[in-house]
């Protein structure tokens, strides 16, 4: 296996191989729970936790799992961690758990997790696997958060509504940006989520293209180009 650098993992996880915007995995929770920023953050952090735990575990057991049974074993590992995370959320973030509902359990089906287990964690040591889980999870969670913020802003004119569900008791960080709660309803429904995600993907591609053009222009002008990627 080629040695991977920590820097590459960071760049890949957050941008070049962002699991939500590039690999386009885990779209079911992405579209369903990003109607507010807090919901999105909650599920993003839950997914990140599971990804971390699963990556480390898969990496630790990678020499003992026979190839024929590796996928069922990965699923057992992931399902066990998702159940544990769900119970912890029920105990410590009860209201958020109620709001997110079935989508916490559905983290098991999130292809990001089994994808990273198969593509990375089963082929690298625990330290790298942990870092990969952290970066891929962070990239995914960030996209969830941005999407949630956009949809909440456009759909109901607030930001961080429901913050008490994550930060306890009386935290009311709700920023009312405009209107009285009635925004552009489409943003709160699944079609609006699809459209918003499409716009995010388009935006990322635009930035990439501009960067590539700038690098090509610099090369043509004979100016030394910085570290690629």
């Amino acid at each position, binding site marked *: 296996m080629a040695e991977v650098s920590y820097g590459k993992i960071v760049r890949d996880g957050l941008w070049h191989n962002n699991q939500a915007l590039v690999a386009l995995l885990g779209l079911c929770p992405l579209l369903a729970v990003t109607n507010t920023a807090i919901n999105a953050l909650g599920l993003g952090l839950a997914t990140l936790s599971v990804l971390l735990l699963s990556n480390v575990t898969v990496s630790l*057991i990678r020499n*003992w*799992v*026979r190839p*024929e*049974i590796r996928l*069922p*074993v990965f699923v*057992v*590992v992931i*399902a*066990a*961690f998702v*159940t*544990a995370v769900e*119970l*912890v959320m*029920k*105990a*410590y973030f*009860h*209201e958020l758990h*109620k709001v997110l509902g079935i989508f916490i359990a559905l983290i098991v089906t999130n292809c990001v997790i089994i994808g990273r287990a198969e593509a990375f964690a089963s082929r690298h040591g625990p330290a790298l696997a942990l870092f990969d889980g952290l970066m891929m999870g962070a990239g995914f969670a960030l996209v969830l958060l941005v999407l949630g913020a956009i949809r909440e802003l456009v759909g109901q004119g607030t930001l961080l509504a429901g913050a008490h569900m994550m930060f306890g008791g009386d935290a009311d960080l709700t920023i009312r940006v405009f209107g009285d*709660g*009635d925004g552009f*309803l489409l943003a*709160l*429904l699944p079609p609006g989520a699809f459209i918003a995600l499409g716009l995010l993907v388009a935006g990322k591609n635009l930035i990439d293209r501009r960067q590539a053009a700038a690098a090509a222009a610099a090369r043509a002008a004979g100016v030394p180009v910085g570290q690629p990627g």
Partner: protein
Amino acid sequence: MARPLTAKFPIAVAGLLLGLFSVAGAGLVAVTHVATKDRIAHNERQALLDRLAVLVPAQQVTNDMATDRIQVSDPDRLGSDRTTVYRARAGDAPVAVILSPVVPDGYAGPMNLLVAVLRDGSLGGVRVVSHHETPGLGDKIEEAKSDWILGFAGKSLDNPSPAGWKVKRDGGEFDQFTGATVTPRAVVKAVKNALLYAREKGEALYAPADSVQARALGGSTG
């Protein structure tokens, strides 16, 4: 040495390994379950109490509404075979009953309500616990989305009269929502039925859970 065991019986070994991992996974879940179950039970109880407390004048209530409850059975009036009725008391004096009827004819399926009926027959309040109504239209029955549901507080079968317990479009006195009539119509009907049930049963709803009266309310299934 001959081929190691793992090469001679690959399937058996694979099966054994899978079994071991499954046991480990189940073990993790079991440990987490035990470690969290008290806190979870506490959270659920607290969530229920919070929901009940908004519907009755909470400063008067001295009993534990979450445990002082009975199961009743009246599918026609309360929408399901078994309905929980919570009781609020101030010392020995009854304060209110909180019924949890099901609205059977919502636009997108059944909805769960909490309806608090005070001793004098008037409503302490109504809240929707769960529903599947259309976002932006029927979901205005949620307290967070509009004040409509708060308008039930203080109403009774005399205010308005039974004929007035419909949405305005049907000739009654309750507002409907622009673009969504089925949802408010169903909720108004369910609240009216709950009031009729409470009036019919009267003081029996406050009877202790192990009394003959309470058991009679539960129907033949007890």
